[in-house]
């Protein structure tokens, strides 16, 4: 394996800046890695044929003395939920198969303007509906730690790509945990910024009041560097926050938890979580306490209603957002036998183009919004949203950040929960409250669960607009843990090239 793919984005950027490595070399190393392992991992839906050309252009500009951004020349993978000019964008759905958008999503445009090199588009649950990538119309992604297990979802492709060293960085989207839960099960880092902190323009909308774009990486500093590239006001997104943001990378570099008050949400520190997940969570807290943080127990009594509210608000908003797939302006068109009216063509197209989970949620959302049920369902869910926000307000009056395990279990087996939607939905119990309240969250590796040897994450949550606090506490914990482990957690991941061969022999891939 080339050493270049093992580097963090920050270290690679330093070598690019010093001229020790070219962007073409770095990009080639990652494309070679994708060619070698992605048959087994299936993190990518599309590999960018122009990546080396883009890299060569950055190298030329650097050689000409042009001033470039801190991540210039660094390759990046892009979740397929983001539209990309010149690259197919499907959001994991058959209904958009082969569609090449005429414009770039704002986070993609910013990444390109920063001189970064898009490697391709990553796999995801269809329209970001799921926690395992098994709902992708193009087949699941496999967890690099164990190819028989899920990489999380919906952004399993982005998380698996960085965990398998196919890309140093990736973009993700998080509506109920789709960046943080994949980070938890793949031993990587993922941040959901404050709602409105990163533009959603060009992100194929799932639930507009919950969706947020954010960074996926192997280190906290790398996530912060990418966060600094993509954050900021965008007039194309009406919900974009006009505030100026402090440097997240600076927050990591100056990480210090002495005097930091960390609240442990007691409702999310229960028997419902796997023993090894809780063990690593508490060890992380002890480590932070030993380094000056103050650990306080807080209560968030309404968090237990968050999932129920989420599974009313999300389908309601999704059923409305997905109405745009009408067989007229983009994507698939299926004409019923013998022809039909525009409505019949639309119904036939959506029947053929949407997968089972998307249909389930559209019907659920249509029901929740129907006359006579609106107040009882959608209206009540919006009230729970207020109560969850009040729980956060009360907690943040006492502490600077909150801590929870990121998800209840380590990676489960592919297929294990596929036909049990309710049990799949419970994966997001710890991540959903942040989306309902718009507050930022990060998941950082906390170790391997002793019982199964699989990665476990710890989640930190901060008040809205205080994303920098996440990078402070996440950066501090990462430094302490890496020191304890004697290296990054991913150094303990199985050697994928051997794994791939074994899996191929067993007929898994």
């Amino acid at each position, binding site marked *: 394996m080339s050493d270049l793919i093992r580097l963090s984005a920050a270290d690679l950027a330093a070598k690019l800046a010093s001229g020790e490595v070219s962007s073409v070399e770095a990009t080639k190393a990652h494309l070679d890695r994708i060619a070698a392992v992605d048959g087994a991992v299936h993190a990518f839906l599309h590999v960018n044929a122009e990546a080396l050309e883009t890299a060569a252009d950055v190298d030329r500009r650097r050689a000409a003395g042009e001033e470039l951004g801190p991540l210039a020349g660094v390759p990046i993978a892009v979740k397929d939920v983001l539209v990309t000019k010149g690259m197919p964008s499907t959001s994991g759905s058959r209904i958009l198969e082969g569609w090449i958008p005429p*414009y770039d999503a704002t986070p993609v445009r910013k990444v390109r303007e920063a001189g970064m090199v898009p490697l391709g588009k990553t796999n995801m649950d269809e329209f970001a509906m799921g926690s395992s990538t098994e709902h992708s119309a193009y087949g699941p992604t496999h967890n690099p730690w164990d190819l028989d297990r899920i990489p999380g979802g919906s952004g399993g492709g982005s998380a698996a790509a960085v965990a398998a060293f196919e890309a140093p960085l990736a973009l993700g989207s998080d509506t109920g945990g789709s960046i943080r839960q994949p980070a938890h099960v793949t031993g990587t880092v993922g941040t959901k910024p404050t709602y409105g902190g990163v533009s959603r323009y060009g992100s194929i909308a799932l639930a507009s*009041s919950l969706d947020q774009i954010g960074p996926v990486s192997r280190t906290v500093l790398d996530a912060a560097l990418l966060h600094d590239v993509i954050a900021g006001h965008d007039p194309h997104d*009406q919900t974009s926050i006009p505030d100026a943001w402090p440097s997240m990378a600076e927050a990591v570099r100056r990480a210090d938890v002495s005097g930091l008050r960390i609240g442990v949400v007691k409702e999310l520190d229960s028997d419902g979580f796997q023993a090894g997940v809780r063990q690593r969570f508490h060890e992380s807290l002890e480590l932070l306490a030993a380094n000056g943080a103050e650990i306080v127990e807080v209560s968030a009594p309404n968090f237990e209603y968050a999932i129920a509210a989420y599974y009313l608000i999300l389908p309601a908003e999704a059923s409305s957002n997905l109405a745009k797939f009408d067989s007229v302006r983009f994507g698939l068109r299926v004409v019923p036998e013998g022809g039909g009216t525009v409505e019949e063509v639309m*119904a*036939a197209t*959506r029947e053929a183009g949407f997968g089972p989970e998307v249909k389930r949620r559209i*019907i659920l959302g249509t029901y929740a919004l129907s006359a006579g049920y609106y107040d009882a369902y959608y209206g009540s869910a919006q*009230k729970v949203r207020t109560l969850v926000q009040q729980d956060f307000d009360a907690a943040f009056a006492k502490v600077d950040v909150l801590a929870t395990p990121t998800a209840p279990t380590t990676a489960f087996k592919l297929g294990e929960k596929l036909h049990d*939607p309710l049990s799949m939905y419970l994966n997001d119990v710890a991540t959903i409250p942040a989306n309902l309240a718009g507050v930022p969250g990060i998941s950082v590796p906390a170790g391997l669960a002793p019982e199964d040897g699989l990665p476990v994450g710890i989640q930190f949550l901060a008040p*809205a607009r205080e994303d920098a606090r996440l990078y402070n506490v996440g950066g501090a914990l990462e430094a302490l843990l890496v020191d304890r482990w004697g290296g990054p957690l991913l150094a303990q991941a199985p050697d994928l090239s051997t794994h791939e061969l074994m899996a191929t022999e067993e007929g898994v891939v």
Partner: protein
Amino acid sequence: MSEISAEQVAHLANLARIALTEEEIEHLTTELGQIMQAVEKVSEVATPDVVPTSHPIPLHNPLREDVPTDVLSVEQALSGAPEHDGTRFVVSAILGEEQ
């Protein structure tokens, strides 16, 4: 709250413009009933005195001058359409025979 029937699911599918098969309607009727039973939990705490929240971060309506900015060209807007005539999207008949 009320039980969900197969007829209701068929009606919802019609509203949502998805030509579900009989088998899908049958599956969804069972699943929807189970999911709704779980999410009805919200009614336990959603009392009349609680104000609903539609949006997580309070925002004002941003306005701008009514002048064209970086919009898509006609060619770009039509580039992904299943059918177009060079200037417009082409669709099949709006009305059926009985209408």
